[in-house]
């Protein structure tokens, strides 16, 4: 429903602004142009997106994701000690993290949900500290190869669509770090004032 408000708001505001600034012709053109450009964009990014999804799938089949999942286990045991006492939760969380890293959103979400369900057991509908951490980990993205973004950049005429890789990694790491730190600080504050 949120998107209905956002969309309606944008369209109505455009009409109001167009009337006030006398740019209604441009607004009308932009509406049709926007719809057309959506298909243009999709077609020009489709090839690159398919290619990188294919490469990611090869890596996945080669065992890269299970290797990554194994590599993350010690870190996750530290981060979520209670949840990871349960071997199956640990498996789901580590697979979730590695799928996120590989940009396999379709695989990551069901795994994350499976982990969240197990962690929510016996909580009476109240999120535990560790469940909050898991969710924060999933709302902050870390992707090794941002294929969609590279495809859009290429579609916009960029010759080196992957040259933003290092800034993306740096910014992702900082954002995940601050997210986890904030969650940790807020959970401590909550405990002191029951």
């Amino acid at each position, binding site marked *: 429903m949120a998107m209905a408000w*956002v969309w309606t708001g944008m369209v109505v505001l455009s009409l109001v602004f167009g009337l006030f600034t006398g740019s209604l012709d441009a607004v009308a053109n932009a509406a049709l142009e926007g719809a057309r450009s959506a298909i243009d964009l999709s077609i020009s990014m489709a090839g690159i997106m398919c290619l990188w999804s294919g490469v990611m799938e090869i890596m996945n089949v080669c065992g890269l994701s299970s290797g990554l999942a194994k590599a993350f286990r010690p870190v996750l045991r530290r981060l979520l000690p209670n949840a990871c006492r349960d071997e199956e939760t640990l498996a789901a969380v580590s697979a979730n993290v590695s799928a996120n890293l590989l940009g396999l959103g379709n695989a990551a979400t069901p795994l994350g949900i499976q982990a969240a369900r197990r962690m929510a057991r016996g909580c009476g509908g109240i999120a535990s500290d560790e469940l909050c951490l898991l969710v924060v980990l999933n709302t902050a993205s870390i992707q090794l190869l941002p294929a969609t973004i590279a495809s859009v950049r290429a579609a916009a005429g960029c010759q080196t669509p992957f040259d933003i890789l290092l800034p993306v990694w740096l910014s992702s790491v900082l954002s995940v770090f601050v997210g986890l730190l904030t969650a940790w600080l807020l959970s401590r504050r909550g405990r002191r004032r029951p």
Partner: protein
Amino acid sequence: MSLSSLVIPLLLAGVAAYGMGKRVDVYGALTHGAEEGLTVLLRIIPSLVGLLTAVGMFRASGAMEWLSTLCAPLLKLLGVPPEATPLMLIRPVSGSGALAVATDLMTVYGPDSYIGRVAAVMLGSTETTFYTIAVYFGSAGIHKTRHALPAALAADLTGFIASAFAVRLFFGA
């Protein structure tokens, strides 16, 4: 020859050779993955049509500029280009909306401009926070989400500020 002209062929050849070494049907996996990529794209096309229409109208009417000017003083303080305001507002709410706004920014300012790069990095280092929280807590039957939302939004805000900072660091403003 730039570094990325080496990276892409190297990555393709390396992954393929590694897969063959592991006795994996490399070509089958490639096409299967490509099919998956196409499915993802097909699923976002309808919302892209809706959102690029709205974003285009929003920009043409002058409302986009007004919104950016409104938030400019605060964003300058954080070192974020005000042109990215609409992207930051829609990012936590809608993934395809953010994709549409970022595409608009890259088209208007160029993919290799400061703003175009910041938009790309913002898109790559943040997530659709509200959607993710709704899906995770919804399916786990959690109704008291406690500090998950503020912490996730802090992560988003950090991602936005860090994106602008990282682009300046690696490319200059």
